[in-house]
């Protein structure tokens, strides 16, 4: 296929044969749907754990980590198949993907910052701690002699 307006674009995507294209799209759609269903299942599992008498914080955190990984998988399929980034030239892919690496620092730095702010406030602002700490945690703290700093994620 020639694009008369863009002669400098020298290599053109194949017009894939319809059957192969449809197969690929169908496969990706099913994959995205399955991942979403699993995510919803995990969401409901977390809900059930929360409803229970003694929510297991580690288990909840593990499930939340799994959902994060599944979301990244979904993002990968959307970008590489639906947006055809996977079909572009490597240099082009790198100009998009490399700047996005900034997110690794971005997420770690700001989440840590929020967490540290919470810990400092719990340490120096008893009113904040008393008025916002979930009740169950408070009871636990009373049993243990030293207050334990909990992670903020419920």
């Amino acid at each position: 296929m020639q694009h008369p307006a863009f002669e400098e674009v020298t290599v053109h995507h194949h017009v894939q044969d319809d059957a192969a294209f449809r197969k690929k799209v169908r496969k990706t759609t099913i994959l995205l749907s399955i991942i979403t269903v699993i995510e919803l299942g995990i969401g409901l599992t977390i809900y059930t754990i929360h409803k229970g008498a003694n929510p297991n914080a580690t288990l909840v955190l593990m499930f939340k980590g799994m959902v994060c990984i599944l979301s990244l998988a979904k993002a990968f399929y959307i970008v590489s198949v639906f947006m055809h980034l996977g079909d572009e030239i490597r240099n082009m892919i790198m100009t998009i993907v490399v700047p996005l690496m900034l997110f690794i620092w971005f997420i770690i730095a700001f989440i840590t910052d929020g967490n540290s702010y919470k810990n400092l406030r719990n340490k120096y602002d008893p009113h904040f701690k008393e008025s916002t700490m979930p009740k169950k945690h408070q009871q636990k703290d009373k049993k243990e002699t030293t207050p334990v700093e909990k992670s903020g994620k419920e």
Partner: protein
Amino acid sequence: MSTQTTVHQTKWWSGGKSPFNLEYGKLMMWYFLMSDAFTFGAFLISYGSIRFSQNFWPDPNVVFNAFPGAGHANLPLAFVSIMTFILIISSVTMVLAVHAGHKEDKKGVIKWLAWTIVGGLAFLGCQAWEWHHLITGEHAVLATAADGKQYIDIIGQTMGGNPWGQLADHNTAMVALNNSSHETLLHLVRESGIKDNGQLAGLSHEKLVGMVQLEHLHIREKGPIAFGGYFYGITGFHGFHVFSGVIINIIMLLMSQKGVFERRGHYLMIEKAGLYWHFVDLVWVFVFLCFYLI
């Protein structure tokens, strides 16, 4: 693709060719989307930062448990899963529209673009319902008056208040109930399903208190206001992207119909609109993750 690129490999940067083998508009769309990803990323990370700075954060399964027409039924995640699937399906129809564009199949482009627009509008409709439900929702929460007395207030999730705090214990709620206004009590009694033919308003304070079924009310403390602010801010910004995506798709549909792309000889504009639309779906993956799942 890979076999073709190796043939040209040495000449990519010697001029006369697009080194990235993309026309200007599409490349710039990619860079715009990258910068937009940082905007959304910054919003979501700021949400995460605030969330980590709090001891308590509302459980999304408690907040998002309503379904249109289902009344007070507790259906966590049900409605948002429908919204997610609408967006996935509209992304698929967009892929098909772009593919039809590659084949210069005008009818196919129009058909699949129309379905994509339907999907986008359906998503926006769902979001409008969800916002409306949250803002106008009437939830009984503990409030503290100027004199320190606690009473029960009826609020929705707005920028000024969040009804999704921790569950109040029975005794506190009972005391607050006694301090509450006549109107609040009337509202709570009506909520509990007792029919009001005008006789309730005449009842005494004590009688109304006695009629309220406290254990069914789930009276909560007020929660972090930032929750509502971030929710409306980020889903609103995403909804604005969906809205503009729908507008772009409508323009593409009209242009295809008028044969603009046919005369131009290529349907590259559909590809650019497609990139934008997929990006909207991509962002939803993370909005869904941050607000509804974790």
